[in-house]
């Protein structure tokens, strides 16, 4: 009974319910949602937002906001693609991925330097670096759309783990190799957040940075390496996107930050930092991805997409705000206290 109440009291439970309800609704209206090819399409569409969301989730847990990751990912991926094109590189995708991740780490370190060591607010710093990254890409690198990408990256983006075929319609969908990247990042992030003192330090800093310092956490270093890590995975996401699209479009990812933040917050991550789970973060992101991708299946024109995503954000965050408000009422408090004393 107690564990049941614990489960139903969690945001993840409600967001899961809403997610299932939405899936069922689309299934009933269209009969297409749970087909094998659509499921694979959704998972494939999750790859890039999923990785971005994991990074954003970690930053929000630490008590800040990162709005620079789309620009960071674009710059890393653009610089890498351009470099390897100019080299006439013919090898596999591994080397470009590593180079992009290294560039991401460097750019993330820049964020981390200002946020961790100079103790500036993450939101302001990343607003600034976001602009700097964009400017550097467009100015110094003179970015324009790269219609071809190195063969190795191309192969990585098009090769499939498996192909799902819809027996009725005959439509097929490939599960891209990049999906593995998303899963690997998820596993690493889970390990860091739950199994390392560095990860617990991220929660501790998000809960109370002064206490964290007094307890013996190196708050500056924790924030620094957090942003290095987020830079690395954001760059990886940028490369996944580039490989999957078969071309490098420098501005294609810009502006994604709002929906990513929305997904993370929708998943029950506290905007003030310190609490939230990766499960909730992924569910929230999945909800947004499904709304973005599947409205067409129930006959709602894609032009309405933004409207529904926006409505979802308002309703979702509204519900969690209401739950917080009711939990803070005197009546609810005394109930909590009684439970505690039992």
């Amino acid at each position, binding site marked *: 009974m107690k564990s049941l109440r614990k489960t139903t009291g969690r945001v993840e439970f409600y967001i899961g319910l809403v997610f299932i309800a939405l899936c069922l609704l689309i299934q009933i209206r269209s009969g297409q949602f749970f087909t094998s090819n659509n499921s694979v399409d959704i998972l494939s569409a999750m790859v890039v937002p999923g990785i971005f969301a994991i990074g954003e989730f970690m930053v929000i847990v630490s008590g800040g906001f990162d709005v620079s990751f789309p620009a960071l990912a674009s710059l890393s991926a653009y610089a890498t693609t351009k470099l390897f094109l100019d080299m006439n590189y013919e090898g596999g995708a591994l080397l470009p991925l590593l180079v992009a991740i290294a560039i991401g780490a460097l750019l993330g370190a820049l964020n981390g330097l200002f946020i961790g060591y100079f103790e500036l607010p993450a939101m302001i710093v990343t607003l600034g670096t976001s602009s700097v990254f964009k400017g550097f890409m467009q100015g110094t690198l003179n970015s324009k759309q790269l219609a071809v990408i190195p063969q190795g990256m191309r192969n990585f983006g098009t090769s499939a783990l498996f192909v799902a075929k819809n027996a009725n319609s005959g439509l097929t969908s490939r599960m891209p190799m990049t999906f593995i990247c998303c899963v690997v990042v998820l596993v690493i992030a889970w390990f860091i957040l739950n199994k*390392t003192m560095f990860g617990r330090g991220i929660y501790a800093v998000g809960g109370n940075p002064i206490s964290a310092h007094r307890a013996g956490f190196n708050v500056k270093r924790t924030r620094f390496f957090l942003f290095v890590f987020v830079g690395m995975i954001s760059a990886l996401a940028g490369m996944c996107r580039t490989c999957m699209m078969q071309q490098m479009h420098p501005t294609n990812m810009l502006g994604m930050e709002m929906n990513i933040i929305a997904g993370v917050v929708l998943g029950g991550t506290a905007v003030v930092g310190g609490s939230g789970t990766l499960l909730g973060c992924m569910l929230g992101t999945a909800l947004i991805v499904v709304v973005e991708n599947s409205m067409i299946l129930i006959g709602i024109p894609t032009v309405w997409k933004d409207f529904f995503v926006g409505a979802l954000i308002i309703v979702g965050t509204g519900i969690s705000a209401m739950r917080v408000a009711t939990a803070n009422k005197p009546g609810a408090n005394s109930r909590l*206290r009684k439970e505690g004393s039992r």
Partner: protein
Amino acid sequence: MSEYLLRAVDIVKTFTGVKALQGVSLDIKPGEIHCLAGENGCGKSTLIKVISGVYQPDSGYIEFDGRKYTSITPRESIAMGIQVIYQDFSIFPNLSVMENLAFNTELAAGHKLVNKKRMRQIAEEALSKINFNVELDRLVGTLTVAEKQMVAICRALMFNAKLIIMDEPTTALTKKEVAALFDIILKLKAQGIAILFVSHKLNEVFEISERFTIFRSGQLIATGNTSDLDDRKFTYYMTGREFENVKFKPSFEAEKPVLEVKNLTVPGAFEDVSFDLKPGQILGITGLLDSGRTELSLALFGLRKTTGGEILMKGKPVSIHSPRDAIAAGIGLVPEDRLSEGLFLPQPISENIVISEIDQLSTNLGVVDRKRRQAEVEKWVSELAIATPNPDNACSTLSGGNQQRIVLAKWLACKPDVLILNGPTVGVDIGSKHDIHTILQRLANQGMAVIIISDDLPEVLENCSDLLVMRAGKIVANLDPSVTDEATVLHHMM
């Protein structure tokens, strides 16, 4: 081996030209309970930070266990066996009791990976030190203040502490919780741990401590055995002033009540509350935390929905559904938590004073008349003796007592007929407390009707002309403070 566990000698600490500590000394014997007292800003916190290694002193030295140090780092201080329990307990509300207890030990041991089993062991060991019982998996944010404090104490005990410094540990505790805390402190003393207890509450100092040290404006004023201390001396050492505690006697009492409350009910909080209030009267309302006293004040100010009864101002029924209605009817409220409810801390003092009367200071076009605003601000700063070099400084730069005066100024500026104060002197030092009482008595004598809601019994007995006691949402007694003692009031409260 010296007689003392800790000696801080002639410590000087300057911050950008301001001398926070002007050569103060503090001696603590092993296993003693020592009280460090002083008003806000006297240098207590600065000395604690010097002892715990957060600040390095400009001159002077510290002797611990017979060894002399000219400066200490936080790490050394912990290694020596000094633990500080800060006012905010330094806890993580978002994490479990287990993690809160085990983090320090795990980090000190340099562990990089999380080992739940080991952390659980550490946490259990910590709790067993004072036989404290709490579920290890609960989030610390869901604990009561007293339980959070116990968690902080348990954590401090993990490092073979020889000296535990508690910075105003009783601020947010109920009477019962304070008693429990004192039990723990005595237990720790029995284990040979010295306690430095920082407080400015007179009764606590007398109850728990064996020796005391009092600071005023960065200087050592007195130190000695608590048994040689009495109320008068204590107050004098703290403030440098002698106070005459004046029992309030209404100089006049109007015939007709200004406020009549009839059978007022807020479901779940209180029911059937009736009383009259005349100009010139100070009405005390007391009761335990859950007696409904706070809700009553909120209901009178339109912040709680009433389901029954009525409120009459000057004989006419008024309907109060919002603070705006209450202000229009002539009712002002100084709320319980002045910091969160009563003040805009980052805003200038001047803005805070005029905020409630901003409508009256505006021209017909809705633009604030700057000259009149300035005059109003100056008037209240001098009237209430708010100690600030510049009224345009942020409110957060002031001490608790001065902040409370601003909340007062804000309401007096609206010239209310009825002023309700909820816990007017909670967290305020003795000098300011006395000043606030003087102001309230003067206001009543000038014809204002005042309600003081407080569980500080000496406060209500001394300053009120009438006293209502609430218990479980009902008024259970109407007492005359001039012939009532504390025990009688307590009897009605429980």
